[in-house]
C-alpha cells in the first residue's frame, strides 16, 4: 500500500512518466551500452508477457507500446523494470508529481520474467552484473563523484532533497546496491541518466561504495538529527538546548519548600 498522502494534478503523473520512459528509453537505445540485454529463456519471456498483460498492459499497452496513462516501454531495458517494480514504484497507484516507493508487489522470479520480456522488445540497459554491486571500490573517488553528480539533489550523504513543484529526490539510505546502480543507468522519473560514458561502471561502483560506507558507519559525533544540516541543529538548539536550560532557570528561580 501507498502510505503517502495524495498529491495534486493526477494528470501530471501520466505525462511525467510517459515522457520519462520514452526519453530515457529511446535515449538509451541510441547510446552505446556496455551491457547488451541478455534475453531470458523463451519460457521466462512467455511468463513475463503473461504477467505484463495481467498487471501492466492497461497503462503500457498490450505490447508495451504505451497507452493513456503509461509510457512506452520499448527500449527501457530490464534495469528499468527491475528498478521500478523492484522498489514497488510500479505498478503505480497514487497520482501526483512523483511515484513513491511502496512494498514490492511481485516475487523476484516474476520481476525477472517481466524484465526479460521488456528487454526482449528492444535493447536497453540490463540488470547490472554482480561485480559492480560489491561495495568494495574507492570510497574517496565515489564520494567526490557523488558530490559533483548527485549531492545537489540527494544531499551530501544521501538524505534526500526537494525538487520543483512537489517533486523530490528520495533519501538513499536502505536502497540496495542494485537499485542504486539501476537508477543511475535508467534515470527514473526526473532523474537524469548517467550512462557509462558519463560515469563508468567502475565510477558507479565507487559511488555505491561511498554510500554504503556512510550508511554503515554511524556518525562519530553522535546522533545525527536526520543529516539535513544546520536547520535541524538550529531547531534542536532552540527546542531542546534552550528548552532544557530554561527548565533549569525556572527551577533555579523557584523558592524551595
Amino acid at each position, binding site marked *: 500500500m501507498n502510505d*503517502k*498522502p495524495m*498529491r*495534486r494534478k493526477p494528470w501530471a503523473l501520466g505525462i511525467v512518466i510517459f515522457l520519462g520512459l520514452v526519453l530515457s528509453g529511446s535515449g538509451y537505445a541510441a547510446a552505446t551500452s556496455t551491457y547488451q540485454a541478455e534475453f531470458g529463456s523463451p519460457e521466462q519471456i512467455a511468463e513475463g508477457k503473461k504477467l505484463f498483460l495481467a498487471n501492466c498492459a492497461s497503462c503500457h499497452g498490450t505490447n508495451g507500446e504505451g497507452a493513456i496513462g503509461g509510457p512506452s516501454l520499448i527500449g527501457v531495458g530490464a534495469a528499468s523494470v527491475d528498478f521500478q517494480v523492484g522498489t514497488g514504484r510500479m505498478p503505480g497507484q497514487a497520482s501526483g*508529481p512523483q511515484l513513491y516507493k511502496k512494498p514490492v508487489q511481485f516475487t523476484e522470479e516474476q520481476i525477472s520474467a517481466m524484465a526479460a520480456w521488456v528487454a526482449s522488445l528492444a535493447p536497453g540497459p540490463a540488470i547490472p552484473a554482480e561485480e559492480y554491486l560489491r561495495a568494495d571500490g574507492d*570510497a*574517496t573517488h*565515489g*564520494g*567526490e563523484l557523488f*558530490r*559533483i553528480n548527485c*549531492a*545537489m539533489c*540527494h*544531499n*551530501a*550523504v544521501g*538524505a*534526500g*532533497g*526537494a*525538487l*520543483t*513543484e*512537489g517533486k*523530490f*529526490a528520495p533519501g538513499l539510505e536502505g536502497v540496495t546496491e542494485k537499485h542504486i546502480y539501476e537508477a543511475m543507468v535508467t534515470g527514473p522519473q526526473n532523474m537524469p541518466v548517467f550512462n557509462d560514458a558519463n560515469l563508468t561502471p567502475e565510477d558507479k561502483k565507487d559511488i555505491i561504495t*561511498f554510500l554504503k*560506507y*556512510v550508511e554503515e558507519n554511524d*556518525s*562519530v*559525533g*553522535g*546522533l*545525527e*538529527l536526520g*543529516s*539535513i*544540516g*544546520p*536547520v535541524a*541543529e*538550529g*531547531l*534542536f*538548539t*532552540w527546542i*531542546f*538546548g*534552550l528548552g*532544557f*536550560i*530554561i527548565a*533549569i*532557570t525556572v527551577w*533555579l*528561580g*523557584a523558592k524551595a519548600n
Partner: protein
Amino acid sequence: MSVITEPKTVIGKAANYVDERLTIGSVLKNFGRKVFPDHWSFMLGEVAMYSFVILIISGTFLTFYFQPSMAEVHYEGSYAPLKGMEMSIAYASSLDISFDIRGGLLMRQVHHWAALLFVAAAGLHMLRVFFTGAFRKPRELNWVVGFLLFLMGMAAGFTGYSLPDDLLSGNGLRIIDGMIKGIPLIGPAVSSGFFGGEFPGTEVVARLYSLHIMIIPALIIALLGIHLLMVVVHKHTHYPGPGRRDDNVVGYPLMPVYVAKAGGFFFLVFGVIAAIAATFTINPIWNYGPYDPSPVSAGTQPDWYIGWLDGALRLAPSNLDLVIAGFVIPMGVMLPIIVSLVFLVLVGAYPFIEAWVTGDRREHHVLDRPRNAPTRTAIGAAGVTFYAVLWAGASTDLIAVNFQMSLNHVLTAMQILLILGPVVAYWVTKRACLSLQRKDREIALHGRETGRVIRLPHGEYIEVHEPVDKYELWKLVDFKDYEPIMPRPNKKGKITVGTKLRSAISKIYFEDRIAPVSKAEYELAHADHGHAAVEEKPKRKPKQLKKNL
C-alpha cells in the same frame, strides 16, 4: 594615630595583603550584599554570557590544532572516504581535530553547540527585555549595546562557520560574495578586497580567522563589559508586585545566595552543552567534503542565526534587476539587504521611538507585564513574526520535502505570510492583551470566580466571587498607563509635522486602552450594589482591605 594591627590567620593575612594593594575590602563592602532580583527570565542573558565563556575555553583548545591555510594538501587522516582527497589545510586540520585528536571532536561540538546557544540565548534575552519594557529610561543605551552584542554574535558565528573550508561553508561564502558583488559601485572592489582577489582565493580563511579569534571576540568582551557595568550602575529591574517600586530593588544579596546560584548556573550551562555535544552530532564537516566551486548539497543552509537573512534572499521576487543608464542594480539581492537593514535599525532604535511617543522622561525600574503595554507587545509580536517567516523561509526546501508539499507553493506562501503574518500577529496580540487587561480588571474589582453557584434567599442564582488578597490586588492595579496626545501648537503657534506625526503614532499606541482600576471604581464596586463576592465572605477579606485603604 593608632598602629594598624596585623591579622593572624592565613586567610586574614592573604586578605590583608590583597586589600592593602587593591582596596578589595571596600569593593566587597559596596558590592558584597548588592541586591539582585530573582526570576527565571533574568537568567537568559547569563546563559548567553556563560556560553560565550565556554566558547572562549573550547575555542582556545581548537586554535592549538586548527591551521587557517588554504594551501592544498592530500588528506592522510583517519576518515576513509576522504583519504587521498585534495583539500585545503584548513579543512584537513579540521578533520584531524575531529578524528585524530582525543577530545578534539568533543571540543568542536561543544564549541559549535555553544555558539548556537550563545546567539539563541542572546536573542531570547532581547525578547524578554523588549516585552517587559526593560529598555526604557535609563537603559536605552544598554539596549543599543546589547543589540550590538547580538550583531557581533552573528558575526562571530558566521566567521567561525566558514573556517573549516568545507563544501557547506564554502557555498555560504560564495553567497556572501554574490551579495557583496551586487552592491552598486563598490561591490566588486569590496569582494576583491575581502577574498584577496577573485572568489574563493587563498586568503579568506586566514582573514576570517583573524576576525574570528581576535577582533570580534575583543569587541564582544568590550561590549559585554560595558553591558554589565551598566547593569551595575542601573541596578537590575524587577517585575511589578507588592513592595517593588521604581525607587527600590527587591531580591537576594549577591553574597552568598546569588554567587552560589549564578556560579552554579555557569556549571549547569556548561554541563548541558557538554551533554549535548557528547551525544549529538553538529556540523559533520566530513559529510560535506572539501570546498569545490562546482558541487553543492541539497539542503544548503546557514546556521540558524543567519537563516533569516538567507530567507530574505529566497523570498525576493523574480527578475528584479534594475538597469539604469547601462548600470545594473540587482534588486533580487539589494531588496533583501535593504529590508534586513531597515528591520535591524528599527530594532536598535525602538527605545528611542517609544520614548518619543510617550514623552515619558521618568526612570523605569519596574517592568511592564506584557499585557499592560498592548501596543508594544503587539509590535513585538509582529516583529517576531516577520523574523520567523524570514527564518522559516531559509528552510523552504526542507519544509517541502518533509511535509510533502510543493517547493514553489511553500515559497509563495512564505512571501504572502511575510506581509500578512505581522499584520495578523499585531492585531491578534493587541486584542489578546486588551482582553487579559479586562480580565485583570474584573478580578481586581469583583474577585476570582470560584465556580461555586449558590441560590440566594429570594431565589436568584449567583456564582460566588472571592476577592483577591492585597498583594495580588496590587499586582493587578499598579501599572503605568498612557493616553494619546493631542497635537499642540509650539511657541510660534504652529503645529509642526513632527508634532502631528507624534500625535498620530501616539493614537495608534494608546487609543485602545484599558485603564487601571481607580480607587473610586474600586470603592463603588465594593460599597453599593452588593456584589455576591462581598456578600459571600463579608467578614474577613473586605475588612482587611479597608484597613489598607
